[in-house]
């Protein structure tokens, strides 16, 4: 027993020594990380302030849970209603808009439900259900999953009751879900960022985009130090301020894949 305690203590000391480095922990979502945004953005912040930003990328639900537990200093997610609830419950300090992107409806090039070209995503969903064309859902309580459920509601469909074998609830992140959709030649709702950097497309392409209801807002929050005393308030706030600053916003806008901008800064709007 004594030996075990010694080992754990040694590891803690070693980690603490490493923690002499200035760093903050940011909980964000898989879609944000997989878009490659952080790899582009964070070195700019680190060079300016010397603060290392460590991003733990998980589903929105888990990111918020990490925040509630105090295991991160800052949250950057895209589920506005859940974020507001987070603040209301006292886990976070303030919620601010950072940037937005949009969702796109992806589908097979041969388009069995005949939805390509329409701007009405709710109508497209209705057609998919009528055609009973295969549709992959993330099913993981992520921001994207919530957005998808919203659209079913707008289309007047109670998806929980009306789904059939054509509706594949996979419980996976965006990347794996896209993999599944590519393998099944199915329709799937995705955020544009992940789609643009997704390489395993198979026969899939964007079939519907531009609907206002596909708007996807990202918000940033400082985890409440009143709740968790160890939160790195000053450094975390510095990161948030930078994201919302002209410099940070421009860096976000400058991030492109194949010449296409992924995220649109809208702080202070």
């Amino acid at each position, binding site marked *: 027993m004594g030996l075990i305690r010694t080992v754990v203590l040694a590891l803690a000391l070693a*980690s603490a020594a490493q923690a002499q480095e200035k760093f903050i922990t940011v909980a964000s979502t898989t879609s944000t990380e997989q878009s490659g945004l952080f790899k582009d953005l964070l070195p700019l912040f680190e060079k300016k302030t010397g603060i290392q930003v460590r991003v733990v990328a998980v589903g929105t639900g888990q990111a918020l849970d990490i925040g509630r537990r105090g295991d991160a200093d800052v949250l950057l997610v895209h589920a506005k209603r859940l974020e507001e609830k987070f603040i209301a419950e006292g886990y976070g300090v303030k919620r601010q808009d950072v940037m937005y992107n949009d969702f796109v409806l992806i589908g097979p090039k041969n388009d069995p439900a005949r939805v390509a070209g329409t701007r009405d995503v709710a109508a497209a969903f209705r057609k998919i259900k009528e055609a009973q064309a295969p549709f992959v859902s993330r099913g993981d309580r992520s921001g994207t999953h919530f957005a998808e459920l919203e659209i079913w509601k707008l289309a007047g469909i109670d998806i929980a009751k009306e789904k059939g074998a054509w509706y594949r609830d996979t419980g996976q992140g965006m990347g794996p879900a896209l993999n599944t959709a590519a393998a099944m030649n199915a329709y799937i709702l995705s955020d544009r960022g992940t789609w643009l950097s997704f390489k395993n497309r198979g026969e899939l392409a964007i079939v519907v985009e531009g609907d206002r209801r596909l708007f996807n807002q990202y918000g940033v929050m400082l985890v409440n130090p009143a709740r968790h005393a160890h939160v790195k308030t000053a450094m975390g706030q510095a990161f948030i301020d930078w994201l919302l600053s002209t410099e940070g916003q421009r860096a976000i806008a400058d991030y492109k894949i194949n010449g296409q901008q992924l995220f649109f800064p809208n702080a202070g709007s």
Partner: protein
Amino acid sequence: MSAIAEGLRRVLELDRELWHIVALSLEVSLSAVLIATVLGLPLGALLAVKRFRGRRSVIVLLNALMGLPPVVVGLLIYLLLSRAGPLGELGLLFTPGAMIIAQSVLVLPIIAALSRQALEDAWREYEEQLRSLGAREFAAALTLLWDARFSLITALLAGLGRAAAEVGAVMIVGGNIDGVTRVMTTAIALETSKGDLPLALGLGFVLIALVLALNAAAQLVKETAERRFG
């Protein structure tokens, strides 16, 4: 085939990043095996040599723990190390330290159970002679450990294989943070989920090559030493 070639090419492009990932994987898994060995070998030796009430239950439990699902261990260690948990003060979550702890927990039963088996067989051969020479349990256990060192290497390699191959535990307690807690297995999982299958494959082959190299080295050491000591 071309996917593999493409993958290896992409992997070689990664260069510094890949080097960091490989180094971290080795650091975490080897540290975990070291800790599990320091704790597990004496445990295995004790179980092999000492007779006590409940010994059989302990052995059955230990054997069963070899099959602990990594993701469950990851979750449990996560709950322990989280700020909201009992050991939150240590600030170990999302660091390589947490990954080492989780993997040590996974590997410890393997080393203890396999060494117990090897040492029990050895004890059957050595017991009378060692007791005749006056070695009491503790001294005898140490002698056994040293004498059975070649079969014990196999137990260590099994533990190392388990640590190097698992992704569930290190993903949860490490957070797969770029440049900090990203190891080979979590990198492979990430690239797969991004749809970058050639890169994932390439990384996979590097991992396999690494484990093969470690095993080959261990075999070499074993054979050379066996020739010297019989």
